[in-house]
């Protein structure tokens, strides 16, 4: 088991090196605005642009830039400095991380707490009106774009522009340490908007998985033992049905920790997603590289955690 985990971590590192190399190359060969020119502002003289280019290290050959980047990254864990604000990418990411973590973890709680029970009840009452209603709603929520749903929610409930002014609107996020109550209320709308499509997907996933599980022989055995149906479902059906969903939870949370660009943008939450979005509009390569690497890191870690969790949840799973 330990050896397996070490091997997985080493492969994860290899993957991260590949990802950083790939993003470096991609963003430099893709046609994009010249960062130096963007930074110099309008009507800058060619001399200023050239000076900036030298300052940013963009005058060096690509291969040298790549070597410097990789060396700084893997020897000094240094992601470089923003072309635009000259702040260190690492500190920018750390500044933005709490908002994204708050958003993601809260949304994950919402979508699991809403999606799983709905899916379980739908599975047990298959083809009932309740099942059809929840699966219909799920379809709508999956199809609704996040930014559209976000704008609708702001229009309906935001304290500044809403019809029913119940929740703080866009741009009201504050850190949990500075004002926990405001942190909570400001995140309620973003949590639900971000969780909506995930809750729908998870409701459908657990529904399908539980329907399959409930036709297993061991469920028949559980009933033949004379267990109450409640126990058959909750103790025998659900644990077996939830296991396959674990990897998907890990992947989704991992991906979202790298920034929920649309929701963060609509609600103006200062998270990693906003950081990436702004960086892309400014061709701020170091930040783009940093955030992409962050997503990859979270996904790799989430996957390893999911695999470890499997070994604990399913006695048949043994790694060697």
């Amino acid at each position, binding site marked *: 088991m330990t050896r397996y985990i070490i091997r997985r971590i080493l492969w994860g590192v290899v993957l991260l090196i590949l990802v950083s190399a790939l993003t470096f190359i991609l963003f430099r060969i893709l046609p994009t605005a010249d960062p130096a020119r963007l930074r110099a502002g309008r009507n800058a003289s060619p001399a200023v642009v050239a000076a900036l280019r030298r300052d940013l290290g963009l005058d060096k050959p690509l291969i040298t830039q790549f070597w410097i980047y990789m060396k700084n990254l893997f020897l000094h864990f240094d992601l470089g400095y923003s072309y635009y604000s000259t702040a260190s990418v690492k500190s920018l990411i750390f500044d933005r991380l709490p908002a994204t973590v708050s958003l993601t973890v809260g949304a994950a709680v919402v979508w699991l707490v809403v999606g799983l029970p709905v899916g379980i009840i739908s599975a047990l009452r298959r083809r009932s009106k309740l099942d059809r209603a929840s699966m219909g709603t799920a379809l709508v929520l999956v199809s609704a774009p996040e930014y559209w749903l976000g704008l609708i929610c702001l229009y309906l409930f935001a304290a500044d522009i809403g019809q029913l002014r119940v929740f703080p609107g866009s741009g009201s996020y504050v850190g949990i340490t500075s004002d926990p109550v405001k942190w909570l209320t400001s995140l309620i709308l973003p949590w639900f908007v971000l969780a909506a499509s995930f809750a729908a997907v998870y409701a459908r996933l657990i529904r399908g998985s539980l329907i399959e599980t409930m036709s*297993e*022989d*061991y469920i*028949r*055995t*559980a*009933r*033949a*033992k*004379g*267990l*109450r149906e409640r*126990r058959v479902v909750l103790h*025998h059906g659900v*644990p*077996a049905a939830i*296991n396959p969903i674990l990897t998907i939870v890990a992947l989704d949370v991992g991906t979202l920790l790298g920034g929920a660009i649309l929701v963060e943008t609509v609600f103006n939450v200062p998270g990693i997603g906003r950081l990436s979005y702004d960086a892309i509009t400014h061709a701020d390569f170091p930040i783009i590289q940093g955030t992409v690497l962050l997503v990859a890191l979270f996904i790799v870690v989430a996957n390893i955690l999911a695999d470890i969790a499997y070994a604990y*949840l*399913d*006695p*048949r799973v043994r790694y060697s």
Partner: protein
Amino acid sequence: MSAEPLLRVEDLHVEFPTEDGVVHAVDGLSYDVRRGRTLGIVGESGSGKTVSSLTTMGLTRRMGARISGRILFEGRDLLTLSEEEMRKLRGNDIAMVFQDPLSSLHPLYRVGAQIVEALRAHRDVPKAHAHARAIELLGLVGIPDPGRRVNDYPHEFSGGERQRAMIAMALVNEPKLLIADEPTTALDVTVQAQILALLERLQRELAMAIVIVTHDLGVVAEMAEYIAVMYAGRIVETAPAERLFSAPEHPYTWGLLKSIPTLEGPRVQELEPIPGSPPSLIHRPSGCHFHPRCPYAQPEHARIDPRSEPVPGEPAHRVACLLEPATRRRLWAQLRAGWTPAEALIAVGSPEGQA
């Protein structure tokens, strides 16, 4: 001997409405099981034998089955019991062992915990006590080192051990009736014999009745006192085991007997498979359901529905066949001598006098 059987099934019908039509899984089934005795129910897959056992357990209700008839267990009609009353009976007075022991045990829980759960579903015993009982039962069913193995997961058990564990789980509440549905089908031949021997020993020690459901006459040959042969949801022949093997009356039973290899018979004798396949339970053949596969069927057998009647002089032996008893006896004599159905038919002559 008490006159009242432990289990009496009377004219049981179980139907499943489906999109393709109504599946007549069990069609007028009647049988008795006496206390401490063994009944073997034999039939091909799709003959309704599993559905009838699941119905006795009250497990077909939630599958949307339409059920009629009576299932009297100690005089109480199980079909009139509420779901909660039925639950209290399941795994307690009536227990069941299933075909595939790996898929029948929950993969995520320890074997011991699953036995403990079966006990505590019906008896309010402390966990430590239940755990000790689980170890005791695993020992009883022949699992070596039960004190250690009780903490194993099902995948750490061999196929035979899993079925032993299933049996232990079924026996934990000392049921009066054990229904074993194809208990050996998924197992190796050597393990099959061990499991059957185990069931026989446990029956003697615990004085419980057993209904053993199987497609394999060989399995019930040694164990069962009575055998019922099912075809297309009905019992076509029922008799004391010895009599069923020595003087079978139904062409389907003959087919089953001729299709099992014997060590005693001449080696040159070829096995005779029953031609055709089991009928659809939605669109059943008219008349005698077996007539499309019966080598001795007469045109009118496609119209007349045979009734189960006692064999002359043998009240315990009942058969539902349209052939004349004398014809049946002559045909079986030919078949037993090693002739094929076609040869037997020629030797006996056209049964109903058709030239």
